[in-house]
């Protein structure tokens, strides 16, 4: 498989990462090399195999539906690039 520069631009948009036209070729070349490695796994016939995500095949637990957290807003917002009156500030999206 080989990625086109349009592919790179599309993925970069989906990933919300700005890739400048000057970077596209380098990114494309490096990703092509990585996908060549990845595509080795396509040779394996895995029909009927159950995919695995946890070695001990554990089932996710449920917990009681009760409040366990207290309000940390002020403390957590200290790390925000821009916050005011308890809100995270972003550029205007609605005119």
């Amino acid at each position, binding site marked *: 498989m080989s990625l086109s520069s349009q592919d790179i631009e599309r993925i970069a948009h989906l*990933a919300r*990462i700005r890739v400048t036209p000057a970077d596209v070729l380098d990114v494309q070349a490096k990703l092509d090399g*990585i996908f060549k490695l*990845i595509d080795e796994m396509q040779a394996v016939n895995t029909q009927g*195999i159950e995919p*695995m995500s946890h070695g001990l095949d554990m089932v*996710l637990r449920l917990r009681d539906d009760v409040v366990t957290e207290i309000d940390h807003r002020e403390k957590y917002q200290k790390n925000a690039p821009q916050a005011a009156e308890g809100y995270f500030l972003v550029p205007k999206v609605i005119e």
Partner: protein
Amino acid sequence: MSWNTFATVAETVKELDDKKVSAVELATHYLDRADALQPVLNAYVTLDREKTLAEAKVADEKRAAGDAAPLLGVPIAHKDIYLIDGWRTTCGSKMLENFVAPYTSTVVKNMTAAGMVTLGKLNMDEFAMGSSNETSYFGPVKNPWDLSRVPGGSSGGSAASVAAGLTPASTGTDTGGSIRQPAMFCNLTGLKPTYGVCSRFGIIAFASSLDQAGPFAQTAEDCALLLSAMAGFDTNDATSLDRPKENYSRDLAKPLTGLRIGLPKEFFGEGVAPGIAKAVDEALAVYRKLGAITVEVSLPNVKYSVPAYYVVAPAEASSNLSRFDGVRYGHRAAEYTDLMDMYKRSRAEGFGAEVKRRILIGTYVLSHGYYDAYYLQAGKLRRLIAEDFKRAYEVCDVVMGPTAPETAFQFGSKSDDPVKMYLNDIFTICANLTGQPAMSHPCGVDENGQHVGMQIIGNYLDEARMLNVAHQFQLATDWHKRHPNI
């Protein structure tokens, strides 16, 4: 006070118990040494003398009051991926350069409860993505054995700091070999436990189905003490295993008579450097002398580990790292035209090249129409690899082989070729895909004097046996007692 900077954790506990040294004296010693060697090794990202000494003082007071926490007053340094309330936590990234953690990870909480004193936060590859520490925004950590070589990665600071005697122990995380490979490069013992044994809560997520926390130390005996402190069920981690606490030191003294060591022929092929193959063979001879027997096993699907890993890890990373949007925390670009542009510029500026590559790979393999061909196929391969191991454990107790195919390499020798870098993890990745415990212990040197590690891969939850195996080897050898001249 004169203090042997290479004292083990076990020795340090004894000196504290015998009142030969105090926690404040220990903390002061290691902080002084860390400051002195920081310009040489770059092992730390953050040191905070005031905080550390305050913790040490509390430890001394607790000791005086009769507190019997097992590691009370023993210093430890943490990889800068662990959140600790009030400490800057960067994950080796510009994205989090100014991020101050608002809560503490469970592993650090557990270690603090065991009495350990935090020395500081250790340098690492950015978001734990790398095998050489060259992707850190704060510059690479140097290998204390040879400053022209990498310490390994991603937990490079964790390895270099223990090897150089800047701390008796450290924590790391291992998503594809990030504890075991640097342990080998710096001549240490490092352990990645079974997935789910240590809580991932408060560890900045890279690939959630692969990430595991584990200890670095000079000996297997120390790793057993450290793991006993750090492991445990945690309701805050959905994949944490609900099981009783273990004493991982319980089997250390058992003889190895009759131990069956499985040697996968796939780990002894032509990809392994001759100096490594020789050291590993000699170590296996020691194991046989100790009463173990070796049997050949086969793991036919293990050769697909690296390709499967480079689907699973980037896919999960692209999801996990989507939280860095320049809004709630992390870097925000200074100039932008609108919200979308702000996201894109903040992420382009905040992440380094390797992190961006992996996000892009992950985004692609998870994008519409590609899921079955990539993430699902990789998940199925994980099952096939796990079944290979299951068959192997019918005829052996542990699997062994070299930790990495080559020893510590020179800075810059792989940094332009990601695939070359990825292949350095060829023997370690399989245990992350299957979730099995795996460790590395020193077992010799190659023709350049660079250190060779023996990897032990155990069956699920068999950490106590693996530590027993490595400990018996260390009683019979002295590779782990060698220290760099620094």
